[in-house]
Protein backbone atom coordinates (compact mmCIF):
# COMPACT_ATOMS: atom_id res chain seq x y z
CA UNK A 1 0.00 0.00 0.00
CA UNK A 2 1.04 3.58 -0.60
CA UNK A 3 2.33 5.36 2.47
CA UNK A 4 2.70 9.07 3.14
CA UNK A 5 5.50 11.14 4.57
CA UNK A 6 4.84 11.91 8.21
CA UNK A 7 4.90 15.45 9.53
CA UNK A 8 3.03 18.69 10.00
CA UNK A 9 0.70 19.82 7.22
CA UNK A 10 -1.60 22.75 6.56
CA UNK A 11 -5.07 22.17 5.16
CA UNK A 12 -7.75 24.77 4.61
CA UNK A 13 -5.67 27.34 6.47
CA UNK A 14 -5.21 25.21 9.58
CA UNK A 15 -1.86 23.69 10.59
CA UNK A 16 -2.26 20.05 11.66
CA UNK A 17 0.07 17.44 13.18
CA UNK A 18 -0.99 14.91 10.51
CA UNK A 19 -3.76 14.22 7.99
CA UNK A 20 -6.19 12.78 10.54
CA UNK A 21 -8.70 14.92 12.42
CA UNK A 22 -11.23 13.97 15.05
CA UNK A 23 -14.66 14.58 13.48
CA UNK A 24 -17.22 16.86 15.08
CA UNK A 25 -19.68 15.36 17.51
CA UNK A 26 -17.39 12.56 18.66
CA UNK A 27 -15.75 12.84 22.09
CA UNK A 28 -15.79 16.61 21.65
CA UNK A 29 -18.01 17.90 24.46
CA UNK A 30 -15.18 18.73 26.86
CA UNK A 31 -11.71 20.17 26.58
CA UNK A 32 -10.25 17.20 28.43
CA UNK A 33 -11.79 14.75 25.99
CA UNK A 34 -10.45 16.71 22.99
CA UNK A 35 -7.04 16.91 24.68
CA UNK A 36 -7.04 13.14 25.15
CA UNK A 37 -7.69 12.59 21.43
CA UNK A 38 -4.80 14.90 20.53
CA UNK A 39 -2.55 12.94 22.90
CA UNK A 40 -3.79 9.74 21.26
CA UNK A 41 -2.58 10.87 17.86
CA UNK A 42 -5.23 13.04 16.22
CA UNK A 43 -3.57 15.60 13.95
CA UNK A 44 -6.29 18.06 14.89
CA UNK A 45 -9.70 17.99 16.51
CA UNK A 46 -13.10 19.39 15.67
CA UNK A 47 -15.28 20.18 18.66
CA UNK A 48 -18.84 19.23 19.34
CA UNK A 49 -21.09 21.69 17.49
CA UNK A 50 -21.67 24.78 19.60
CA UNK A 51 -24.83 26.84 19.22
CA UNK A 52 -26.23 30.13 20.47
CA UNK A 53 -27.99 28.62 23.53
CA UNK A 54 -27.18 25.67 25.83
CA UNK A 55 -28.99 22.61 24.50
CA UNK A 56 -29.63 19.27 26.24
CA UNK A 57 -30.31 17.44 22.95
CA UNK A 58 -32.93 14.82 22.22
CA UNK A 59 -34.38 12.16 24.48
CA UNK A 60 -32.81 8.72 24.21
CA UNK A 61 -32.04 6.38 22.69
CA UNK A 62 -29.66 8.88 21.04
CA UNK A 63 -27.22 6.44 19.47
CA UNK A 64 -27.21 2.76 18.58
CA UNK A 65 -24.88 0.48 16.68
CA UNK A 66 -26.15 -1.01 13.48
CA UNK A 67 -24.44 -3.23 10.86
CA UNK A 68 -21.38 -1.33 9.66
CA UNK A 69 -22.24 1.89 11.34
CA UNK A 70 -23.70 4.04 14.04
CA UNK A 71 -27.13 5.61 13.94
CA UNK A 72 -27.54 8.75 16.00
CA UNK A 73 -29.90 11.56 16.80
CA UNK A 74 -28.10 13.40 19.56
CA UNK A 75 -29.89 16.66 18.82
CA UNK A 76 -26.86 18.98 19.07
CA UNK A 77 -26.34 18.91 22.85
CA UNK A 78 -23.82 21.57 23.88
CA UNK A 79 -23.07 24.04 26.68
CA UNK A 80 -22.96 27.03 24.31
CA UNK A 81 -20.79 29.95 25.48
CA UNK A 82 -19.50 28.02 28.51
CA UNK A 83 -17.50 25.97 26.01
CA UNK A 84 -15.10 28.88 25.51
CA UNK A 85 -13.50 27.98 28.85
CA UNK A 86 -13.35 24.28 27.89
CA UNK A 87 -10.94 24.84 25.03
CA UNK A 88 -8.96 27.67 26.63
CA UNK A 89 -6.27 25.17 27.81
CA UNK A 90 -6.00 23.93 24.19
CA UNK A 91 -5.37 27.30 22.60
CA UNK A 92 -1.94 26.19 21.37
CA UNK A 93 -3.38 23.07 19.75
CA UNK A 94 -5.09 22.55 16.38
CA UNK A 95 -8.69 22.91 17.54
CA UNK A 96 -11.41 23.70 15.01
CA UNK A 97 -14.67 24.83 16.57
CA UNK A 98 -17.83 23.43 15.01
CA UNK A 99 -20.73 25.86 15.01
CA UNK A 100 -24.42 25.64 14.34
CA UNK A 101 -27.14 28.24 14.25
CA UNK A 102 -30.42 29.08 12.57
CA UNK A 103 -29.16 32.00 10.47
CA UNK A 104 -25.99 33.92 9.54
CA UNK A 105 -26.27 36.13 12.65
CA UNK A 106 -26.24 33.07 14.96
CA UNK A 107 -23.19 31.66 13.20
CA UNK A 108 -21.33 34.94 13.36
CA UNK A 109 -22.12 35.49 17.02
CA UNK A 110 -21.03 32.02 18.15
CA UNK A 111 -17.85 32.20 16.05
CA UNK A 112 -17.05 35.52 17.68
CA UNK A 113 -16.84 33.87 21.12
CA UNK A 114 -14.02 31.66 19.85
CA UNK A 115 -12.15 34.16 17.67
CA UNK A 116 -9.24 34.20 20.17
CA UNK A 117 -8.92 30.46 20.83
CA UNK A 118 -9.95 28.56 17.68
CA UNK A 119 -7.62 27.80 14.77
CA UNK A 120 -10.63 27.78 12.50
CA UNK A 121 -14.34 27.10 12.31
CA UNK A 122 -16.35 24.27 10.85
CA UNK A 123 -19.92 25.20 10.00
CA UNK A 124 -22.42 22.49 10.76
CA UNK A 125 -24.93 23.01 7.98
CA UNK A 126 -25.53 19.31 7.70
CA UNK A 127 -26.86 17.71 10.90
CA UNK A 128 -29.90 15.72 9.75
CA UNK A 129 -31.81 15.61 13.02
CA UNK A 130 -32.37 19.14 14.35
CA UNK A 131 -35.38 21.05 13.09
CA UNK A 132 -34.42 24.50 11.79
CA UNK A 133 -30.69 23.83 12.11
CA UNK A 134 -27.99 21.85 10.32
CA UNK A 135 -29.24 20.35 7.07
CA UNK A 136 -32.22 22.72 7.11
CA UNK A 137 -29.64 25.37 6.23
CA UNK A 138 -27.19 23.20 4.32
CA UNK A 139 -29.67 22.26 1.61
CA UNK A 140 -30.13 25.94 0.69
CA UNK A 141 -27.15 27.29 -1.30
CA UNK A 142 -27.99 30.92 -0.57
CA UNK A 143 -28.09 30.29 3.20
CA UNK A 144 -24.80 28.39 3.06
CA UNK A 145 -23.20 31.28 1.21
CA UNK A 146 -24.47 33.84 3.72
CA UNK A 147 -23.52 31.82 6.80
CA UNK A 148 -20.04 31.20 5.42
CA UNK A 149 -19.58 34.86 4.59
CA UNK A 150 -20.76 35.89 8.08
CA UNK A 151 -18.23 33.66 9.85
CA UNK A 152 -15.42 34.45 7.39
CA UNK A 153 -15.70 38.07 8.49
CA UNK A 154 -13.83 37.08 11.68
CA UNK A 155 -10.73 36.49 9.56
CA UNK A 156 -10.14 32.86 10.58
CA UNK A 157 -10.34 29.82 8.30
CA UNK A 158 -13.88 28.58 7.71
CA UNK A 159 -14.63 25.01 6.77
CA UNK A 160 -18.15 24.10 5.71
CA UNK A 161 -19.35 20.57 6.48
CA UNK A 162 -21.85 19.42 3.89
CA UNK A 163 -24.75 17.04 3.99
CA UNK A 164 -24.86 14.15 1.53
CA UNK A 165 -28.67 14.32 1.68
CA UNK A 166 -29.02 16.52 -1.40
CA UNK A 167 -29.52 15.85 -5.09
CA UNK A 168 -26.31 17.64 -6.10
CA UNK A 169 -23.74 18.29 -3.38
CA UNK A 170 -21.62 20.43 -5.72
CA UNK A 171 -24.15 23.29 -5.74
CA UNK A 172 -23.73 23.53 -1.96
CA UNK A 173 -19.96 23.17 -2.19
CA UNK A 174 -19.78 25.98 -4.72
CA UNK A 175 -21.98 28.15 -2.49
CA UNK A 176 -19.54 27.64 0.40
CA UNK A 177 -16.63 28.46 -1.88
CA UNK A 178 -18.35 31.64 -3.08
CA UNK A 179 -19.02 32.61 0.54
CA UNK A 180 -15.30 32.53 1.30
CA UNK A 181 -14.82 29.04 2.77
CA UNK A 182 -11.23 27.84 3.18
CA UNK A 183 -12.28 24.21 2.83
CA UNK A 184 -15.25 21.91 2.42
CA UNK A 185 -15.78 18.92 4.69
CA UNK A 186 -17.65 16.07 3.06
CA UNK A 187 -19.78 14.56 4.50
CA UNK A 188 -22.02 14.60 7.56
CA UNK A 189 -24.26 11.63 8.35
CA UNK A 190 -26.75 10.08 5.95
CA UNK A 191 -30.42 10.26 6.94
CA UNK A 192 -31.46 6.92 8.32
CA UNK A 193 -33.61 5.08 10.81
CA UNK A 194 -34.16 1.69 12.39
CA UNK A 195 -37.29 0.24 13.89
CA UNK A 196 -37.38 -2.18 16.78
CA UNK A 197 -39.58 -4.95 15.42
CA UNK A 198 -40.03 -6.29 18.94
CA UNK A 199 -41.21 -2.98 20.33
CA UNK A 200 -42.85 -1.92 17.05
CA UNK A 201 -41.44 1.59 17.10
CA UNK A 202 -38.46 3.58 15.86
CA UNK A 203 -35.40 2.92 18.00
CA UNK A 204 -34.17 6.50 18.27
CA UNK A 205 -35.92 8.86 20.65
CA UNK A 206 -36.08 11.39 17.80
CA UNK A 207 -37.34 8.55 15.55
CA UNK A 208 -34.89 9.17 12.70
CA UNK A 209 -31.27 10.25 12.68
CA UNK A 210 -28.01 10.05 10.80
CA UNK A 211 -25.92 7.06 9.79
CA UNK A 212 -22.12 7.16 10.08
CA UNK A 213 -19.36 4.57 9.99
CA UNK A 214 -18.11 2.07 7.42
CA UNK A 215 -21.55 1.79 5.84
CA UNK A 216 -21.35 5.33 4.44
CA UNK A 217 -17.71 5.30 3.28
CA UNK A 218 -18.61 4.76 -0.41
CA UNK A 219 -21.16 7.59 -0.19
CA UNK A 220 -18.50 9.90 1.22
CA UNK A 221 -15.95 8.93 -1.44
CA UNK A 222 -18.44 9.78 -4.19
CA UNK A 223 -19.25 13.15 -2.61
CA UNK A 224 -15.54 14.00 -2.30
CA UNK A 225 -15.08 12.92 -5.91
CA UNK A 226 -17.88 15.18 -7.18
CA UNK A 227 -16.73 18.16 -5.13
CA UNK A 228 -13.15 17.75 -6.42
CA UNK A 229 -14.46 18.00 -9.98
CA UNK A 230 -16.54 21.11 -9.24
CA UNK A 231 -14.73 23.17 -6.58
CA UNK A 232 -11.33 24.80 -6.26
CA UNK A 233 -10.93 24.95 -2.47
CA UNK A 234 -9.48 22.05 -0.43
CA UNK A 235 -11.71 19.15 0.54
CA UNK A 236 -11.55 17.27 3.83
CA UNK A 237 -13.02 13.79 3.58
CA UNK A 238 -15.30 12.51 6.32
CA UNK A 239 -17.52 9.47 6.54
CA UNK A 240 -16.66 5.94 7.51
CA UNK A 241 -12.87 6.31 7.50
CA UNK A 242 -11.37 3.62 9.71
CA UNK A 243 -8.17 2.37 8.06
CA UNK A 244 -5.03 3.76 6.42
CA UNK A 245 -6.28 2.46 3.10
CA UNK A 246 -9.53 4.41 3.55
CA UNK A 247 -7.46 7.57 4.02
CA UNK A 248 -5.49 6.93 0.83
CA UNK A 249 -8.69 6.16 -1.08
CA UNK A 250 -10.36 9.34 0.16
CA UNK A 251 -7.28 11.32 -0.86
CA UNK A 252 -7.22 9.78 -4.31
CA UNK A 253 -10.84 10.92 -4.64
CA UNK A 254 -9.66 14.45 -3.86
CA UNK A 255 -9.39 14.96 -0.11
CA UNK A 256 -6.34 16.71 1.38
CA UNK A 257 -7.07 15.41 4.90
CA UNK A 258 -9.72 13.27 6.55
CA UNK A 259 -11.85 13.34 9.65
CA UNK A 260 -12.38 10.17 11.67
CA UNK A 261 -15.36 9.78 13.97
CA UNK A 262 -17.35 6.59 14.36
CA UNK A 263 -14.24 4.40 14.23
CA UNK A 264 -13.47 5.40 17.82
CA UNK A 265 -16.21 2.97 18.85
CA UNK A 266 -13.85 0.13 17.91
CA UNK A 267 -10.86 1.63 19.66
CA UNK A 268 -10.21 5.02 21.14
CA UNK A 269 -6.65 4.64 19.82
CA UNK A 270 -7.83 4.58 16.21
CA UNK A 271 -5.63 7.53 15.23
CA UNK A 272 -2.45 5.73 16.28
CA UNK A 273 -3.66 2.61 14.50
CA UNK A 274 -4.33 4.39 11.22
CA UNK A 275 -1.10 6.41 11.42
CA UNK A 276 0.91 3.21 11.88
CA UNK A 277 -0.23 2.01 8.45
CA UNK A 278 -0.41 5.39 6.75
CA UNK A 279 3.01 6.90 7.39
CA UNK A 280 6.54 5.75 6.70
CA UNK A 281 9.92 7.38 6.22
CA UNK A 282 9.95 6.54 2.51
CA UNK A 283 6.31 7.57 1.96
CA UNK A 284 5.20 9.84 -0.87
CA UNK A 285 4.16 13.47 -0.52
CA UNK A 286 0.41 13.76 -0.09
CA UNK A 287 0.19 16.10 -3.11
CA UNK A 288 1.21 13.17 -5.27
CA UNK A 289 -1.98 11.27 -4.51
CA UNK A 290 -4.65 13.89 -3.82
CA UNK A 291 -7.18 13.57 -6.66
CA UNK A 292 -4.93 11.22 -8.60
CA UNK A 293 -7.82 8.89 -9.43
CA UNK A 294 -9.39 11.64 -11.54
CA UNK A 295 -6.49 11.53 -13.96
CA UNK A 296 -6.38 7.76 -14.48
Amino acid sequence: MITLQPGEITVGGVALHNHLLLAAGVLGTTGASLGRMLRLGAGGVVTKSIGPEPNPGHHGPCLVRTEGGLLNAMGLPNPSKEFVGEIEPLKDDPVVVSIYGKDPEDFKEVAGWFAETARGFELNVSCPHAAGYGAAIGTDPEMVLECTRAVASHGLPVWVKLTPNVTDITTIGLAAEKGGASAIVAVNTVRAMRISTELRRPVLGYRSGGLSGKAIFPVAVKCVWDLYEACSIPIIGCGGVSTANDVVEMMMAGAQAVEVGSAVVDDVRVFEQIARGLYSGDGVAAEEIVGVAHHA
Partner: protein
Amino acid sequence: MPDLPMLPVRVTVKAVVEETPSVRTFYFEPAIPSSPGQFVMVWVPGVDEVPMALSSATSITVQQVGDATTAMFLLRPGDSLGIRGPLGNGFTVSGKTLAIGGGVGAAPLLHLAVEGQVSTFLLGARTADELLFAPVINASSNLKIATDDGTAGHHGVVTDLMDEIDLEAYDHICVCGPEIMMLKVLERLQKAGVADRGQFSLHRYMKCGIGVCGSCATDPHGLRVCRDGPVFTGADLLESEFGRYARDATGSKVVFPWAKKAEE
Protein backbone atom coordinates in the same frame (compact mmCIF):
# COMPACT_ATOMS: atom_id res chain seq x y z
CA MET B 1 -15.20 -4.80 16.77
CA PRO B 2 -15.50 -5.13 20.53
CA ASP B 3 -18.40 -6.99 22.00
CA LEU B 4 -20.77 -4.05 22.06
CA PRO B 5 -24.54 -4.36 21.76
CA MET B 6 -26.36 -3.44 18.56
CA LEU B 7 -30.01 -2.36 18.71
CA PRO B 8 -31.77 -2.60 22.08
CA VAL B 9 -33.23 -6.01 22.82
CA ARG B 10 -36.69 -6.30 24.29
CA VAL B 11 -37.00 -7.67 27.77
CA THR B 12 -40.29 -8.45 29.47
CA VAL B 13 -40.91 -7.41 33.04
CA LYS B 14 -41.62 -10.54 35.09
CA ALA B 15 -41.91 -9.07 38.57
CA VAL B 16 -41.69 -5.77 40.35
CA VAL B 17 -40.47 -5.82 43.95
CA GLU B 18 -40.86 -2.82 46.22
CA GLU B 19 -37.54 -2.89 48.07
CA THR B 20 -37.99 0.35 50.00
CA PRO B 21 -40.49 3.21 49.79
CA SER B 22 -38.40 4.81 47.01
CA VAL B 23 -36.65 1.85 45.36
CA ARG B 24 -38.02 -0.96 43.23
CA THR B 25 -36.39 -3.93 41.57
CA PHE B 26 -37.62 -4.89 38.12
CA TYR B 27 -36.98 -8.52 37.24
CA PHE B 28 -36.97 -9.27 33.53
CA GLU B 29 -36.45 -11.98 30.92
CA PRO B 30 -34.32 -12.88 29.08
CA ALA B 31 -31.21 -12.51 31.24
CA ILE B 32 -28.36 -10.17 30.31
CA PRO B 33 -25.19 -12.20 30.99
CA SER B 34 -22.88 -9.78 32.76
CA SER B 35 -20.20 -9.23 35.38
CA PRO B 36 -20.90 -7.43 38.66
CA GLY B 37 -20.62 -3.67 38.23
CA GLN B 38 -21.55 -3.62 34.56
CA PHE B 39 -24.54 -1.54 33.53
CA VAL B 40 -27.18 -1.36 30.82
CA MET B 41 -28.88 1.42 28.91
CA VAL B 42 -32.56 1.04 29.71
CA TRP B 43 -34.98 2.29 27.08
CA VAL B 44 -38.39 3.22 28.41
CA PRO B 45 -40.26 3.42 25.08
CA GLY B 46 -41.62 6.86 24.35
CA VAL B 47 -39.82 8.43 27.32
CA ASP B 48 -36.02 8.19 27.37
CA GLU B 49 -33.04 5.88 27.70
CA VAL B 50 -31.01 5.94 30.92
CA PRO B 51 -28.02 4.04 32.36
CA MET B 52 -28.79 1.59 35.19
CA ALA B 53 -26.57 -0.77 37.13
CA LEU B 54 -27.59 -4.42 36.97
CA SER B 55 -28.42 -5.82 40.41
CA SER B 56 -28.32 -9.30 38.84
CA ALA B 57 -28.32 -10.70 35.32
CA THR B 58 -32.11 -10.44 35.33
CA SER B 59 -32.78 -7.28 37.32
CA ILE B 60 -32.28 -3.59 37.66
CA THR B 61 -32.89 -1.77 40.92
CA VAL B 62 -34.22 1.71 40.45
CA GLN B 63 -34.76 4.84 42.53
CA GLN B 64 -37.39 7.24 41.27
CA VAL B 65 -35.51 10.40 40.30
CA GLY B 66 -36.54 11.62 36.82
CA ASP B 67 -38.86 11.16 33.84
CA ALA B 68 -37.58 7.73 32.83
CA THR B 69 -37.59 6.25 36.33
CA THR B 70 -41.00 7.76 37.08
CA ALA B 71 -42.32 6.07 33.93
CA MET B 72 -40.64 2.83 35.03
CA PHE B 73 -42.49 2.95 38.32
CA LEU B 74 -45.73 2.55 36.31
CA LEU B 75 -44.49 -0.70 34.72
CA ARG B 76 -46.31 -3.94 35.49
CA PRO B 77 -45.42 -7.58 34.78
CA GLY B 78 -45.84 -8.21 31.06
CA ASP B 79 -44.65 -4.73 30.03
CA SER B 80 -41.60 -4.31 27.82
CA LEU B 81 -38.33 -2.41 28.06
CA GLY B 82 -35.45 -2.11 25.60
CA ILE B 83 -32.00 -2.98 26.91
CA ARG B 84 -28.53 -2.30 25.49
CA GLY B 85 -25.86 -4.08 27.41
CA PRO B 86 -24.00 -5.23 29.32
CA LEU B 87 -21.78 -2.15 29.13
CA GLY B 88 -18.69 -0.92 30.96
CA ASN B 89 -15.92 -2.65 32.84
CA GLY B 90 -17.42 -3.82 36.12
CA PHE B 91 -15.57 -4.67 39.35
CA THR B 92 -12.45 -6.80 39.17
CA VAL B 93 -11.82 -8.64 42.42
CA SER B 94 -9.90 -11.55 43.84
CA GLY B 95 -8.92 -12.40 47.38
CA LYS B 96 -10.55 -10.47 50.20
CA THR B 97 -13.05 -7.78 49.26
CA LEU B 98 -14.74 -5.04 51.23
CA ALA B 99 -17.91 -3.57 49.74
CA ILE B 100 -19.28 -0.18 50.76
CA GLY B 101 -22.72 0.76 49.49
CA GLY B 102 -25.01 3.70 50.13
CA GLY B 103 -28.68 3.98 49.14
CA VAL B 104 -29.51 2.55 45.74
CA GLY B 105 -25.74 2.26 45.16
CA ALA B 106 -25.96 -1.11 46.87
CA ALA B 107 -27.45 -2.51 43.63
CA PRO B 108 -24.27 -3.32 41.63
CA LEU B 109 -22.57 -4.46 44.86
CA LEU B 110 -25.40 -6.90 45.53
CA HIS B 111 -24.47 -8.65 42.29
CA LEU B 112 -20.92 -8.96 43.62
CA ALA B 113 -22.04 -10.16 47.07
CA VAL B 114 -24.39 -12.91 45.87
CA GLU B 115 -21.55 -14.28 43.75
CA GLY B 116 -19.72 -14.81 47.05
CA GLN B 117 -17.04 -12.26 46.28
CA VAL B 118 -17.56 -9.92 49.25
CA SER B 119 -16.11 -10.68 52.69
CA THR B 120 -17.41 -7.62 54.51
CA PHE B 121 -20.22 -5.34 53.41
CA LEU B 122 -20.81 -1.88 54.86
CA LEU B 123 -24.33 -0.79 54.00
CA GLY B 124 -25.72 2.68 54.60
CA ALA B 125 -29.09 4.38 54.23
CA ARG B 126 -30.97 7.39 55.54
CA THR B 127 -33.29 5.30 57.65
CA ALA B 128 -34.04 1.64 58.38
CA ASP B 129 -36.86 1.55 55.79
CA GLU B 130 -34.43 2.60 53.05
CA LEU B 131 -31.84 -0.13 53.74
CA LEU B 132 -31.48 -2.09 50.54
CA PHE B 133 -30.99 -5.87 50.31
CA ALA B 134 -29.81 -6.23 53.94
CA PRO B 135 -31.12 -9.82 54.45
CA VAL B 136 -29.68 -11.08 51.15
CA ILE B 137 -26.31 -9.44 51.75
CA ASN B 138 -26.24 -10.76 55.30
CA ALA B 139 -26.59 -14.28 53.93
CA SER B 140 -23.47 -14.02 51.77
CA SER B 141 -21.12 -11.70 53.67
CA ASN B 142 -20.38 -10.10 57.00
CA LEU B 143 -22.87 -7.19 57.00
CA LYS B 144 -22.51 -3.98 58.99
CA ILE B 145 -25.22 -1.33 58.85
CA ALA B 146 -25.34 2.41 59.38
CA THR B 147 -28.38 4.70 59.19
CA ASP B 148 -28.35 8.49 59.28
CA ASP B 149 -31.18 8.57 61.83
CA GLY B 150 -30.03 5.59 63.88
CA THR B 151 -33.16 3.49 63.23
CA ALA B 152 -30.92 0.52 62.38
CA GLY B 153 -27.29 -0.31 63.05
CA HIS B 154 -24.78 2.44 63.70
CA HIS B 155 -26.30 5.92 64.12
CA GLY B 156 -24.38 7.91 61.50
CA VAL B 157 -22.91 7.67 58.03
CA VAL B 158 -21.59 4.49 56.48
CA THR B 159 -18.02 5.79 56.44
CA ASP B 160 -18.08 5.80 60.27
CA LEU B 161 -18.11 2.00 60.02
CA MET B 162 -14.66 2.16 58.41
CA ASP B 163 -13.20 3.13 61.82
CA GLU B 164 -13.46 -0.45 62.98
CA ILE B 165 -12.13 -1.92 59.74
CA ASP B 166 -8.50 -2.71 59.01
CA LEU B 167 -8.50 -1.45 55.41
CA GLU B 168 -5.08 -2.95 54.73
CA ALA B 169 -6.53 -6.40 55.32
CA TYR B 170 -8.56 -6.12 52.10
CA ASP B 171 -7.28 -6.62 48.57
CA HIS B 172 -10.15 -4.67 47.03
CA ILE B 173 -12.59 -2.09 48.32
CA CYS B 174 -15.61 -1.79 46.02
CA VAL B 175 -17.74 1.29 46.46
CA CYS B 176 -21.02 2.58 45.06
CA GLY B 177 -23.34 5.25 46.38
CA PRO B 178 -23.92 8.98 46.39
CA GLU B 179 -20.82 10.88 45.25
CA ILE B 180 -20.38 12.63 48.62
CA MET B 181 -20.28 9.22 50.29
CA MET B 182 -17.79 7.85 47.79
CA LEU B 183 -15.66 10.97 48.24
CA LYS B 184 -15.54 10.38 52.00
CA VAL B 185 -14.57 6.76 51.41
CA LEU B 186 -11.81 7.81 49.02
CA GLU B 187 -10.46 10.29 51.58
CA ARG B 188 -10.25 7.49 54.14
CA LEU B 189 -8.59 5.12 51.70
CA GLN B 190 -6.06 7.78 50.80
CA LYS B 191 -5.34 8.43 54.45
CA ALA B 192 -4.74 4.73 54.95
CA GLY B 193 -2.51 4.65 51.86
CA VAL B 194 -4.71 2.20 49.98
CA ALA B 195 -6.45 4.44 47.42
CA ASP B 196 -5.27 2.14 44.62
CA ARG B 197 -7.28 -0.74 46.15
CA GLY B 198 -10.51 1.22 45.84
CA GLN B 199 -12.90 0.52 42.96
CA PHE B 200 -15.51 3.24 42.67
CA SER B 201 -18.56 2.97 40.43
CA LEU B 202 -19.05 6.45 39.06
CA HIS B 203 -22.31 8.00 37.93
CA ARG B 204 -22.27 10.57 35.12
CA TYR B 205 -24.75 11.81 32.54
CA MET B 206 -24.62 9.44 29.55
CA LYS B 207 -26.12 9.49 26.10
CA CYS B 208 -24.53 6.84 23.89
CA GLY B 209 -23.26 4.33 26.47
CA ILE B 210 -20.58 2.99 24.11
CA GLY B 211 -17.83 5.61 24.26
CA VAL B 212 -18.55 7.75 21.23
CA CYS B 213 -20.47 10.86 22.22
CA GLY B 214 -18.24 12.07 25.04
CA SER B 215 -21.02 13.33 27.31
CA CYS B 216 -19.66 11.32 30.27
CA ALA B 217 -15.99 12.25 29.77
CA THR B 218 -14.28 13.19 33.03
CA ASP B 219 -11.64 15.80 33.80
CA PRO B 220 -8.72 16.07 33.46
CA HIS B 221 -7.92 12.83 31.61
CA GLY B 222 -10.96 12.70 29.33
CA LEU B 223 -11.79 9.17 30.45
CA ARG B 224 -15.29 8.01 29.47
CA VAL B 225 -17.38 6.71 32.36
CA CYS B 226 -19.44 4.52 30.01
CA ARG B 227 -16.50 2.80 28.33
CA ASP B 228 -13.35 3.34 30.41
CA GLY B 229 -15.52 2.88 33.54
CA PRO B 230 -17.94 3.05 35.20
CA VAL B 231 -15.57 1.53 37.77
CA PHE B 232 -12.38 3.50 38.40
CA THR B 233 -9.65 2.92 40.97
CA GLY B 234 -9.28 5.39 43.80
CA ALA B 235 -5.89 6.29 42.35
CA ASP B 236 -7.62 7.25 39.06
CA LEU B 237 -10.01 9.52 40.91
CA LEU B 238 -7.50 11.43 43.03
CA GLU B 239 -6.81 14.78 41.37
CA SER B 240 -9.86 14.33 39.10
CA GLU B 241 -13.21 16.13 39.01
CA PHE B 242 -14.55 13.37 41.29
CA GLY B 243 -16.34 14.85 44.29
CA ARG B 244 -16.25 18.37 42.85
CA TYR B 245 -18.55 18.53 39.84
CA ALA B 246 -20.38 16.56 37.16
CA ARG B 247 -21.99 17.64 33.91
CA ASP B 248 -25.59 17.96 32.79
CA ALA B 249 -27.17 17.03 29.45
CA THR B 250 -25.75 20.14 27.76
CA GLY B 251 -22.22 19.37 28.93
CA SER B 252 -22.23 22.28 31.40
CA LYS B 253 -20.45 21.75 34.68
CA VAL B 254 -22.66 21.34 37.73
CA VAL B 255 -20.68 21.88 40.92
CA PHE B 256 -21.80 19.69 43.83
CA PRO B 257 -23.36 21.64 46.73
CA TRP B 258 -20.68 20.54 49.21
CA ALA B 259 -17.90 21.51 46.80
CA LYS B 260 -19.49 24.92 46.33
CA LYS B 261 -19.44 25.42 50.09
CA ALA B 262 -15.81 24.36 50.22
CA GLU B 263 -14.88 26.95 47.59
CA GLU B 264 -16.65 29.77 49.45
